[in-house]
């Protein structure tokens, strides 16, 4: 009996494995052979390009509209959407390791980790051969962030530089002049202090735990996270220490911003605090605008560029596309990608005003400036060339990010001096980078 049970179980297992794998292989092959044979130029043939999609309803509407416009021009190419939901990175990894990835991937900050693992197709050959495409229109600092060993693995679609949103009414009450785009870090600190009122639970600023806002403060103080060759951490510089001291001053000493744990415990987003007049200033990208337009804020407000120190660099939310290396239709995928990040696609991005177009297309940027919402919306456009996403360039960024955040947390909660923070951060980063 025992033997029989083993055989039975083995059989069940085998059937399971065979149906699992076999089904998969068949379906991919079945789909692909047909369009390839027909090739391009044949108007009757139809190639389907699977493209990842995510974000708000508004954002998805923008993609649909772009796709519709594209498909009108290219009747032989059909775009099929793959919704990757909110856990974009995990969903993308699952799709890739499951062997059924979209042809065009939606990427935020993990281009390099994927490129390092050979998942993405270099775009250089397409760009070289296609004279209708001009890479020079893109901001060099962003393009560089998608390069590995000199090859380009992604093209940005939306760029949302962070600027400072501020409540004009609260500035008036504190007898402060409104900030101008050339204001300095000292001006900022002075304003934040005057705008903080513990009795009313009102903070002058919120040091965002979102993304890498802290790195913006480092960059503006002349520091950077890595050495230029990306081999070692560069946070041992005196500039980095100065930046860390500044962050500690904002959050701990002056306490003009809640600390990361308080932010977590408040359980409220910066924009909600801003709306409730509990926050006079916060740094964020364009994605706040649709919400503030749909439901107007009950006070006067505007935006201004990040305060200047050594430079006026800023961080941004970026969406980029990459082509999966195993796509069966590289040419068609490139056509789609080129259209999305081209002038037509970028003008649509500007029309929706959720982000800036990620290339310096004057006519598209003019749409944003003309919207006059808010008055100084130009601050976003002016910030775009100074966006620095240095963290995109390191393949182990997700791990480095956790290590850096741990040290920052310690300092910002008030448990660790900037000097020790710098020392620990430097050691931990190098440890990870040396692996």
């Amino acid at each position: 009996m025992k033997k029989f049970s083993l055989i039975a179980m083995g059989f069940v297992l085998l059937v399971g494995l065979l149906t699992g794998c076999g089904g998969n292989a068949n379906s991919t092959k079945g789909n692909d052979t047909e369009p390839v044979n027909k090739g391009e130029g044949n108007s009757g043939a139809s190639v389907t390009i699977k493209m990842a999609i995510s974000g708000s309803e508004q954002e998805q509407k923008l993609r649909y509209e772009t796709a519709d416009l594209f498909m009108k021009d290219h009747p032989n190419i059909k775009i099929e959407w793959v919704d990757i939901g909110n856990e974009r990175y995990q969903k993308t990894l699952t799709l890739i390791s499951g062997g059924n990835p979209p042809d065009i991937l939606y990427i935020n900050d993990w281009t390099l980790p994927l490129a390092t693992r050979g998942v993405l197709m270099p775009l250089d050959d397409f760009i070289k051969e296609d004279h209708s495409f001009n890479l020079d229109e893109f901001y060099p600092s962003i393009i560089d962030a998608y390069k590995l060993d000199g090859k380009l693995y992604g093209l940005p679609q939306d760029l949302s530089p962070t600027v400072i949103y501020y409540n004009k009414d609260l500035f008036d009450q504190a007898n402060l002049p409104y900030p101008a785009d050339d204001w300095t870090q000292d001006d900022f600190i002075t304003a934040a202090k005057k705008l903080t009122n513990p009795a009313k639970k009102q903070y002058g600023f919120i040091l965002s735990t979102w993304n890498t806002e802290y790195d913006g403060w480092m960059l503006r103080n002349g520091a950077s996270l890595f050495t230029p060759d990306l081999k070692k951490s560069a946070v041992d510089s005196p500039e980095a220490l100065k930046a860390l001291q500044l962050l500690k001053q904002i959050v701990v000493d002056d306490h003009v911003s809640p600390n990361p744990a308080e932010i977590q415990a408040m359980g409220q987003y910066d924009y909600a605090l801003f709306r409730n007049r509990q926050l006079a200033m916060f740094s964020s990208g364009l994605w706040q605008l649709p919400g503030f337009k749909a439901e107007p804020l009950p006070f006067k407000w505007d935006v201004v560029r990040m305060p200047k120190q050594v430079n006026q660099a800023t961080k941004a939310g970026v969406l980029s596309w990459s082509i999966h290396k195993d796509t069966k239709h590289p040419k068609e995928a490139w056509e789609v990608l080129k259209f999305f990040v081209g002038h037509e696609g970028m003008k649509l991005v500007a029309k929706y005003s959720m982000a800036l177009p990620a290339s310096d297309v004057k006519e598209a940027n003019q749409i944003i400036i003309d919207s006059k919402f808010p008055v100084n919306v130009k601050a976003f456009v002016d910030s775009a060339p100074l966006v620095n996403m240095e963290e995109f360039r390191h393949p182990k960024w997700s791990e480095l990010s956790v290590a850096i955040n741990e040290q920052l947390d310690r300092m910002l909660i008030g448990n660790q001096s900037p000097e020790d923070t710098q020392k620990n951060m430097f050691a931990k980063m190098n440890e990870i980078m040396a692996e």
Partner: protein
Amino acid sequence: MNLKSLKIPTSMKETLWAYVFISPIMLGFAVFMLYPLSASLYLSFTNSDGITVAGFVGFDNYVKLMSDKDFIKSLFVTAYYTLGTVPIGTGLALIVAVILNAKIRFTTIYRSAFFLPVITSMVAVATVWKWLYNTDYGLINAFLMNLGLYEPPWLASDKWAMPAIIMMSIWKGIGFNMVLFLAGLQGISPTIYEAAKIDGANGLRRFVHITIPLLRNTTLFVFIIAIISSFQVFDQVFIMTKGGPAKSTTVIIYYIYQNAFQFFKQGYASAMGYVLFAIIFVITMVQLKISNRKDVN
């Protein structure tokens, strides 16, 4: 094919049908348990990143784990959680079970009330408790403020975050253990209590000398289950603190999750999973050994 023509003996035929009937569960077990278990065991000996072809690295992952400070810290954090939840949670569950086993009015309502958190999804519970712990608007601190007591910063502090999670988890788990204890209590014959009563034993003595010893097997079971699940704590950490502040709530499963799904280290994470398995296995074995020895005495 006609089964009759094969002339299979009846007993064999019955066995065959038995296998047919259990095949759905066996198939499910094979696909969702056996295969992942063996795949992750294999992965733990590779440098798999979940995407590229994995290379075999032997015991490298396990060796590296021994000197991984973050891993060791996560073990201590998990042990802290276990020590916080298991003894108190089990003790409270026993007390609640004894009280609800007595013949008081509305027991069913009380029992349901205690059991309700168990059947509620952890995600929902953790989200609500996150609000309760809110330092500015939370119900708990509002209550403490009215009493003029100290208002802890709860999830905002690296010292209070873990106690906050522990309190919530005890509240969530008490009903489950209570039901197990209730079942155990029903199994104790009332005649023993009656005999003790006649001999003049008061309520406390009856509890200490009859209830506790006779519930030993139930208690052992509750302890083992509670320890196993406390080593696997994840959901509430993920929802309430994301392992922070400053890693003070990064429990072992959360660290495994980070390595597997954020750092591209599935091989390394699998090795951690198996170390965790070994730890739980050893602890459970020790518990069983200890309880057996008592039997001999």
